[in-house]
C-alpha cells in the first residue's frame, strides 16, 4: 500500500513509540476537559490540579444545563446550522453541476470568485452585515445567523461539490439524456444518487462551519438567537471564572461532533483532502 513503509522491526518499534506519544499528547487536552467536567466545581480549580476526579459527579452538567438560555441556545445552534446547511446545498449542488458539466467561461469565473471569497476576513463583511440584517428585520434570528454562516459554507460547498461531480463520468449524463431524461431530471435521478457520499461530506462541512462559528453569531444576535458558542464564551465574563460548568457545556457541545467524526471519518478525510491533493 504505502510507498514509504519502513520494514525493519527495531525502527518500526521506535516509530510506533514516537507516533503513540504524539497521539497521546494530542488527545490529552480534550481528555482533560472531559475529566474535569466530572469533578466537583471546587476540585476543578484545585491547586495542584488533579487529572482524575476524586469524586465523580454530574454537578457541573446540572449547573451548566439548568442555566437560563443554555437549552434555548442549543435549539438556536441546531436551527441556524440546519437552515444554513440546507441553503448551502440547495444553492451549491446546481451551481457545481453547472460548472462541471458545461465547461463555460462563466463557470470558471464563478469558481474563481467562490475561491477568492474564502480569503475575505469575516470581520470585514460582519460589520456592514449588521446594518443589512437590521434592514431585513433578521437581527437576532436564527435565519439571520444562518444566512451569514452560508456566506462561509457556500463557497466551500461549491468547491467540494464541483470536485465530487468532476469524478462522475460524463457518459452517465449522456446515457440519461439518450433515454429521454431532461437535464434537471438527469441531475436529480441519475447524478445525485451517484454522488450522495459527496453530498453527505458537503453537508457535514456546511453544518460544522455553522455549528462552530462565533463572530457572525456574536455580531448578529442579542439574546433570543444566541448560539451555544456565545453562551460558552459568556461563562467566563459574566459569572466570574466558572470553569467546571464551562467544561461541562463545552463537552456537551463538542462530543456529538467528535463522535460524528469518528463514525464518518472516511468521508471527512475525503472532504478535507479534496482539492488540495488534486492540485
Amino acid at each position, binding site marked *: 500500500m504505502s510507498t*514509504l*513503509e519502513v520494514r525493519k522491526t527495531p525502527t518500526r518499534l521506535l*516509530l510506533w513509540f514516537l507516533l503513540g506519544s504524539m497521539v497521546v499528547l494530542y488527545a490529552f487536552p480534550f481528555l482533560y476537559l472531559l475529566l474535569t467536567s466530572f469533578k466537583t466545581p471546587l476540585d476543578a480549580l484545585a491547586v*495542584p490540579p488533579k487529572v482524575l476526579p476524586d469524586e465523580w459527579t454530574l454537578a457541573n452538567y446540572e449547573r451548566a444545563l439548568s442555566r437560563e438560555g443554555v437549552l434555548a441556545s442549543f435549539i438556536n445552534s441546531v436551527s441556524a446550522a440546519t437552515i444554513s446547511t440546507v441553503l448551502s446545498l440547495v444553492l451549491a449542488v446546481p451551481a457545481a453541476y453547472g460548472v462541471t458539466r458545461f465547461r463555460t467561461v462563466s463557470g470558471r469565473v464563478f469558481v474563481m470568485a467562490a475561491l477568492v471569497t474564502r480569503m475575505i476576513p469575516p470581520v*470585514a463583511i460582519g460589520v456592514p452585515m449588521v446594518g443589512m440584517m437590521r434592514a431585513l428585520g433578521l437581527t437576532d434570528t436564527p435565519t439571520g445567523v444562518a444566512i451569514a454562516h452560508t456566506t462561509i459554507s*457556500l463557497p466551500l460547498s461549491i468547491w467540494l461539490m464541483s470536485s465530487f461531480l468532476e469524478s462522475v463520468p460524463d457518459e452517465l449524463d449522456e446515457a440519461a439524456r439518450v433515454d429521454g431524461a431532461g437535464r434537471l431530471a438527469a441531475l436529480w435521478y441519475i447524478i445525485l444518487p451517484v454522488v450522495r457520499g459527496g453530498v453527505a461530506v458537503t453537508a457535514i462541512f456546511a453544518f*460544522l462551519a455553522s455549528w462552530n462559528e*462565533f463572530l457572525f453569531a456574536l455580531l448578529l444576535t442579542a439574546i433570543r438567537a444566541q448560539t451555544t458558542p456565545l453562551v460558552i464564551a459568556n461563562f467566563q465574563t459574566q459569572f466570574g471564572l466558572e470553569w467546571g460548568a464551562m467544561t461541562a457545556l463545552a463537552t456537551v457541545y463538542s462530543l456529538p461532533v467528535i463522535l460524528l467524526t469518528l463514525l464518518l471519518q472516511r468521508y471527512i478525510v475525503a472532504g478535507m483532502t479534496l482539492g488540495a491533493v488534486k492540485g
Partner: protein
Amino acid sequence: MSVSEPGQVTTLPRPTRAEHGRRPGKGSRIDDRRFALLLMIPAALFMLAFVAWPLVKLVVDSFFEISPIAGGPRTFVGLDNYVDVLGSSAFQAAAARTLGYTTLVVTFEFVLGLAAALLFNSLGNRSRILRTAFLYPLMIAPIVAGLLWRFLLIDNFGIVNELLFRLGILNDRNDIGWLSDSSIALFAVAVPDIWLTTSFMTLVLFAGLQNIPGDIIEAARIDGAGPVSTLFRIILPLLRPVIAVALVVRGVDAAKAFDIILIQTGGGPQNSTETLSLLIYQTMVRFGEPGTASAMGTLYLVAMLVVAVVAVGLIWRPGGRQA
C-alpha cells in the same frame, strides 16, 4: 485506509468536454450554456447580496465619519480615515502581530503535520486507528479550543505549569504566565490554533504522500540516498503542490483568527495579542467608530485579496484542477 474511496484524492482521467458547450441537448429548449448559467444564478445572486454588497458598503463606509448610533449622522471625510489608520501605531502593530501569528501557526503546523504524516506513512495501514484519533480536534469549535487551552495554561492551577513544575523545569507553578506575560502571550495564544488544525496538515500531506509512486523512492534507495536526502531531494519536491495548497489554506485561516484569540486574552495583555480581526472588532463595537473600522477592514481585505490572487494564480491556475 485506501485512498480510492468516495472523493478519492487521486486525479481521475477525465474526458474532455470541449464539444459539450455548443451541442444542444436532446429535446432541450435552451442551449447548454444558458442552462449552465441558470444553474449558477441562484448561488451567484446569494453571493452578490450577502458578500459583494456588504463589501461595497464596507468600502463606502470607509470614506465617512459615522456615528455609532443606528441612523445617526454621517459625514464624508474622503481619505481621512485611511490617513488616520495607516498612521496609527495600533494598526501597524496589529498588522505585524497578524503576520507573526500566521507565520508561527503555519510553521508549527507544517513541521508537526509533516512529521506525523511521515510517521503514519512509514507505519503503513496498521496506523489507521491512531490516524482517526489524530483527527478529532478538527471538529472542535475554536471557542472551545481557546477556552480549553486557557484552562490548561492558567498560571496557578493549570496543568501545563504543574507538569513543568513536577519535571523540575519551573521552580514555582506561577513562574510562567503564558497568557498574562505580554512578551510571550502571542506565542501562547497560537498553541490552541496549532493543536486544532495540525491534523488538517497531516491529512493533506498524508494523502499527498500516498500518491508518490513507490518505485521513485525505491530508485533513490538503490542509488544510495539516505532517508534525509530522500526527504529533501525527492519527497518534498514531489509534494510541492500539495504543500503549497495546504500552506495557503491554513495561512488564510490563521490570518482570519478571531474567536480563538478573543476568548483567551481579549487582545491583551497590553494589546500584545491584538491581531487585525480583533482590532477591527474593538474599533467597531467598543470604541464605536464604524468609519475607522471600515477603513481598517478595507485595508485588511485588500491585503488578503492580494495574497489570494497571487496564490490562486500560482497554484490553482484559472480554469481547472487538472494542472
